[in-house]
């Protein structure tokens, strides 16, 4: 019984953190945001050198062959630094989908390029999560049509993975789709609207049950989004504690006032158990099938709630400064807020957890 990170995992996270500290400073984030740049080439290059895009891809295809917990730790670090690189779609959802449901030929043709960072993949699962302004994505032979909203990691993507109304998964070359970038409060990640008009597609067909493949991919996405929020919220807590220990008002550092101290304590008390929830959900994804789905839902929903709480309280601890652009605190605030809405809002995801447990 060892509910803790391995030495390798600690080393992995430390390595990524050090890299981010160097190459993803607030100044860099700020500049990327000003330019609507969500794929910082230098940073993405360095992460690629570490093998990050291939984290979940089998060694047979040039990846590192790690598990979802490792991917979650990376997501936590990326969230902690509000990193302006593709990850959740291109390096988690797409590789998992192709490995779960792709033919050997499809694996051969896509995975090595994804692992090496040569290509990135945008991912559109809106059909499965709850459609808003979508037009149903349908397939006919090897063509897909329709409009998918809120595809992830779309900027400069070479290929798109898209779910159809029948829960099929298709790969469409970027040239065959029309991309309209959507701009959200979070300027550190890219989302977009994809329109397909009889676009030639490569269908992932080897899956026995496409519905459960899709569900499994979504589970992974939810855990990793939760991990991203965990990292971002942890950074906001750390910044609040630092600020409360430095800023003076009424001849005292404000952290000595109970009102401020208790806000920090409440953030920590809410957030700390979330780490264990994310770890467990990520571990369960690979190792404890009977808990995988329900803990993925809870990780996503609970981190969304706690994340919003921490984002707000940290801003309040910073007072007026937290509301300005000067400290850049809002980049974390907004990333947490986007994460909340991605891959299912808390109410939606909890409802799914109820279904999984047979409550409805």
């Amino acid at each position, binding site marked *: 019984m060892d509910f803790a990170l391995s030495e390798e995992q600690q080393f992995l996270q430390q390595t990524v953190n050090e890299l981010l500290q160097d190459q993803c400073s607030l100044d860099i984030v700020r500049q990327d945001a000003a330019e609507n740049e969500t794929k910082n080439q230098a940073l993405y290059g360095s992460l690629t050198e570490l093998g990050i895009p291939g984290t979940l891809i089998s060694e047979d295809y040039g990846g590192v062959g790690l598990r979802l917990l490792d991917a979650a730790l990376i997501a936590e670090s990326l969230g902690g630094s509000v990193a302006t690189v593709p990850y959740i779609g291109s390096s988690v959802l797409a590789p998992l989908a192709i490995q779960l449901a792709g033919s050997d030929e499809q694996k051969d043709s896509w995975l090595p390029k994804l692992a090496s960072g040569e290509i990135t993949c945008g991912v559109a699962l809106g059909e499965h999560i*709850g*459609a*808003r*302004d979508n037009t149903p994505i349908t397939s006919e032979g090897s063509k897909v049509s329709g409009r998918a*909203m*809120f595809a992830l990691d779309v900027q400069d993507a070479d290929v798109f993975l898209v779910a159809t109304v029948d829960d099929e998964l298709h790969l469409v070359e970027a040239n065959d789709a029309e991309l*309209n970038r*959507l*701009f*959200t*409060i*979070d300027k550190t990640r890219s*989302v977009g*609207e994809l329109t397909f008009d009889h676009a030639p597609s490569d269908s992932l067909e080897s899956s026995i049950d496409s519905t459960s493949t899709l569900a499994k991919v979504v589970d992974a996405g939810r855990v990793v989004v939760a991990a991203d929020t965990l990292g971002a919220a942890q950074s906001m807590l750390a910044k609040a504690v630092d600020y409360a220990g430095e800023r*003076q*008002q*009424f*001849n*005292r*550092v*404000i952290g000595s*006032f109970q*009102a*401020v101290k208790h806000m920090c304590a409440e953030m920590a008390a809410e957030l700390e158990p979330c780490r264990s929830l994310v770890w467990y959900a990520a571990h369960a994804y690979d190792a404890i099938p009977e808990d995988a789905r329900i803990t993925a839902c809870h990780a996503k929903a609970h981190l969304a709630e706690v994340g*919003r709480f921490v984002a*707000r309280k940290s*801003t*309040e601890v910073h*007072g*007026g400064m*937290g*509301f*300005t*652009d*000067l400290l850049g*605190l*809002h980049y974390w*605030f*907004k990333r947490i*807020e*986007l994460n*909340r*809405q*991605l891959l299912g*809002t*808390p*109410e*939606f995801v909890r*409802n799914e957890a109820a279904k999984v447990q047979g409550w409805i």
Partner: protein
Amino acid sequence: MDLEYSSEYEDFRNELRNFLEENKHLSPGAIARPPTNREGSEDGPNPAQRWQQLLIEHGYAARTIPKEYGGCGEAPDPLKTHIIAEEFAKARVRPGHSGDNRLVPTVLELGTEEQKRWLVPPSIRGEMSWCQGYSEPGSGSDLASLSTRAEVDGDDFVINGQKIWTSGAQHADMMFCLVRTEPDAPKHQGISYLVFSMDTPGIEVRPLVTMTGDATFNEVFFTDARVPKNQIIGKRGEGWFVANNTLKHEREGLGDPHQAENRFREIEELMRNETVDGDPIMDNPTHRDRLLQLQGRMLAMKYNGMRVLTSQRKHEEPGLPRWIIKLQGCELNHQMAAMAIDALGELGTLYHRSDHMRAGGMWQQRFMMDLGLIIGGGTAQIQKNMIGERALGLPKEPKVEVKPT
């Protein structure tokens, strides 16, 4: 308990409605901010100023300001004030203003006769607009610790230092400002209240971008800015007490229950119209129950506002019902924005004039702006201190007067 208006007020309301019907084509658009001189040409009053003048003539603006300073000289009547606000809002017509609702009452109460004649008439005519120089980077909640200095040199104060959170500083003609004139006095007794033109040499305004991405606030830097000594309101060292008068007037504007009711209606509409997988959000019982909880809070605040209005009309101190408005009202607004975003899901995160954005990104903007309002004008924590100490009579924290090392 009688929620009908007496015939005096019904008549007043009808007159006002007729006035609006006949004249609203003259209104320069429903902008809440008082018009400034800079909006007009130099050849005479601009449309906003002409509109303001018309409202003053009819008693719909600057109502209680004495005639000798350009106002209507009516007795204060909170109910009429309320009716005016209500009818202008209903007709979506730009309301009048009273110059600056912080500065003008302060000058009228504490200024010299000369100052009143200098400052009040152009302010209420919209020819002199104001910004407030209180907060500093080092003094937010502890406003009295401000360190911008004004030293006497001949007939002038010479100002050096920095202000922050100065909304409208880029447009304003004038600033009312707190400066430290007696550095050796206890902190509350060393402050003076000055008024001066924003064109004074040595003043630099830099926009302050907030998390919303807008620059509605500014930083203002002073480098040897010279202000004549007679531009002080009140006596040297009494600025803190003058300023408290201003703060009192400012606080009353926040947490307006009408705004909350309008927001609530907007969310209701949103939840009827927006769908997930084809079903209106309103059909989702979890979202609906959350909306209902907000409705309960909104109604309580709305009726609380009616209670405050009644007290004011009777010249009674409203007490707790007023003390809690800023804290509860700002929180309610923030919760409503959060609810709207959650109802919109991913669509609720769109911004920067993105395609598919709803209501111009208003909810996202409000969600952040409201958090700013929870913090600004006395943080929620300071509000709770005030409610605890002033309304409930609990003792203050023991003072720590040791200077930090």
